């Protein structure tokens, strides 16, 4: 404790104030300069050194950061409590505040020591190095299918909704036997029939409604007339509203 006052390094501190990360950092450095266990430092000496440095710094640079000045104000208050306590309560306040400051300095010192300890360890990427070209033995197997019922149902709904939406714009499907269909059927079947045959025999098997039956009959008649026009078939009706008969070949050949 003897050399505390003999070597105040204030000048150096004033110049390097920016080098400290805040007032606490500076206080810790001042405390360490007392070269004793942090538990036994003189808070009063510390306070006086800090105030001297701030005072000196303000003479050189007026724009001193607020937190330096706040700390200075608080330390000035602490100094008054430690030096000239108005009463017992004030003295006690001063002692408590001094203890708090000492505890904060010890906590910061411990962190600094922790940082130094970490810093001294061989760091990966700094002092020691991992494998530069790692090898990967992982193989991705995409052969299996990921299937689940919800996805199947969602897909079904999507398909039905889309086609359902489409169906609204589609014209009603034609259910009737067309002349084209009748022509194909008649051409295919007529060859296997030797003589006169009722044209009704060439109607398709499926005729759900009377309307469909009449439609099929008229389509087949049109097809028969078409064939007769080309000379591939002959038509005949023996009585009004009687059955219409058809046979392959032109009319004149058989007369």
């Amino acid at each position, binding site marked *: 404790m003897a050399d505390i006052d003999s070597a105040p390094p204030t000048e150096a501190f004033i110049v390097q104030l920016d080098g400290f990360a805040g007032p606490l950092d500076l206080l810790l450095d001042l405390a360490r300069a007392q070269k004793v266990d942090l538990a036994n430092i003189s808070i009063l000496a510390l306070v006086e050194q800090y105030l001297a440095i701030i005072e000196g710094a303000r003479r050189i640079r007026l724009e001193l950061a607020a937190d330096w000045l706040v700390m200075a104000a608080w330390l000035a208050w602490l100094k008054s409590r430690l030096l000239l306590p108005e009463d017992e309560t004030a003295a006690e306040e001063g002692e408590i505040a001094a203890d708090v400051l000492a505890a904060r300095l010890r906590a910061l010192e411990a962190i600094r020591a922790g940082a130094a300890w970490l810093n001294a360890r061989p760091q990966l990427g700094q002092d020691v190095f991992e494998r530069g070209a790692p090898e990967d033995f992982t193989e991705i197997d995409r052969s299996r299918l990921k299937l689940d019922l919800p996805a199947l*149902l969602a897909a079904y709904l999507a*398909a039905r909704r889309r086609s359902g939406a489409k169906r609204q714009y589609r014209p009603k499907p034609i259910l009737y036997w067309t002349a084209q269909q009748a022509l194909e059927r008649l051409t295919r079947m007529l060859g296997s029939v030797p003589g006169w045959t009722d044209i009704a025999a060439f109607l398709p098997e499926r005729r759900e409604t009377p309307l469909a039956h009449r439609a099929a009959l008229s389509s087949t008649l049109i097809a028969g007339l078409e064939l007769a026009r080309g000379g591939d078939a002959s038509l005949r009706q023996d009585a009004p509203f009687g059955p219409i008969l058809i046979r392959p070949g032109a009319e004149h050949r058989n007369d």
Partner: protein
Amino acid sequence: MTDYPHAERLLEAVIFASREPVPLRALATLLPDGADLDATLAAIHAHHAGGGIELVEAGQGVMFRTAPDLAFALRRVVEVPRRLPRVAMETLAIVAYHQPVTRAQIEEIRGASLSQSTLDALLEADLVAPAGHKEVPGRPTLWATTPHFLVQFGLKSLRDLPRQTDLLVEAASSSADTHEPGPADP
């Protein structure tokens, strides 16, 4: 265990930490005075002989690799299952609900044409299979789901599929005219 000369340790570490094979020339510049590159590399090689890693030449340099005969033991197969494409999933769903069903019917229900590749994918995955022919002109193939389909979807039978009426609340009436029976129907 072994007595390592400094040159050997240094080159071992450099080759280990490098991202690329280290050119011999670069290694030579690192060697302490008087050390021989070939001899040092031979020593490193010998030290690892028979171990899990080995020093190999690659291009103009050298690198460490794990021993090739261990690759099989170290291989880790990670399964990343594929999803069926949407078109295939929809087709599969239609077959499931309307089987046996012709290709033309599938196309009508989906409102889109069915590509051969989609059908092939489902065949290859053993999810659908031919189930006879429809006795109409042209005798088109009928398609149905396979037993494997049930396994894949964790179904005991086709009856486990939700009924169409439960599924298609609003579409049920409109579908009545064309394709009524679901798989749950007898």
